[in-house]
């Protein structure tokens, strides 16, 4: 996958860190100190369909399909997460119990074009 830089226009992963102390949540979330709420942004013009973050062969297959099916009818595709991982939290619940859980698919590691 590609990480966004300042002037990225194409589909990439935008890093965004939420510091729990900054939002006043450090008293009830014991671990970790923050949440990497990365997100996908950017354009997916025709020639980028199916990349990056997926197997190169997938990209070739998508491009061939677009050519075979009258390319100019195809529209842009969307910039979406292609790799995600869980967010592990150790926190107090409303009865002051201490709970540990892994929330699946909360952190985006890579983005790509559908």
């Amino acid at each position, binding site marked *: 996958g590609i990480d966004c830089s300042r002037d990225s226009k194409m589909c990439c992963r*935008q890093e965004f860190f939420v510091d729990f102390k900054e939002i006043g949540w450090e*008293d009830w979330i014991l671990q970790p100190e923050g949440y990497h709420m990365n997100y996908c942004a950017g354009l997916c013009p025709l020639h980028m369909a199916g990349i990056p973050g997926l197997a190169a062969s997938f990209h070739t297959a998508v491009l061939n399909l677009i050519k075979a099916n009258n390319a100019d009818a195809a529209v842009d595709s969307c910039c979406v997460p292609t790799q995600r991982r869980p967010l592990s939290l150790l926190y107090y619940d*409303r*009865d002051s119990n201490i709970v*540990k859980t892994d929330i699946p698919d909360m952190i985006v590691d890579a983005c790509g074009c559908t």
Partner: protein
Amino acid sequence: VAPMGARCPACGLAALDPAAQRHILMARAKQSILAKLRLPGRPNITQPVSRGALLTALGRMHVQRMDPVSPGMSHESSVPHLHPGVGLQEYEILSFAESGSSTSRRVHLHFRFTRELAGNVEILKATLYLFWADPGPGTHPVTIRLLQPDLTGLNMTVAHEARLEVQRAGWATLDVGQAVQSLFGQGSQRLTVELEAAEDWGSPLLAGHSDSHWPFVAAQARARMPHRVQRR
């Protein structure tokens, strides 16, 4: 902002000034975490657990995992062994006791489990950890009763009873999985434990609630399988 920006929520952010973007993303992060934890809002912590009690509890759980048949009083697991569900969110819950009414021979402890969890998870395992004060020479009988409210909610019924002979100070464990599971099944959230000791011992627990020896329940739970409608 390209015309496609209108269709892609994240691209809409690009059109905002950095401060507005940050504000929106922070709000989104809070909303996302609270929704995934099934919390209506951030909890207000009224009784934070002391660091000593937390570290001791985590240490005891680790010992229990390493040596399940610890000398204490590990009871046969009474929760039917549920095979781990693939991809279902799992929870480990540490619930520290609240003191209930007590006499010279009886101690009541309350363990409260949150509404968000009680209705949405199944208990895979739950263990009660007790630290006995020094009972003095000989063996001392103690009866442990797990009480839960009856269907009217007015009276307490005995869900489980265990008797044991305590010879020395130290940690003991009791499997309470079945009792916690049936509590959740009844929509209740509070497990009451009654300890009854012989006359000459007095309070069986370490006197003075010394922080790092305070009783707790360690439970492992898993989100309920989403209800699947089978089409034939």
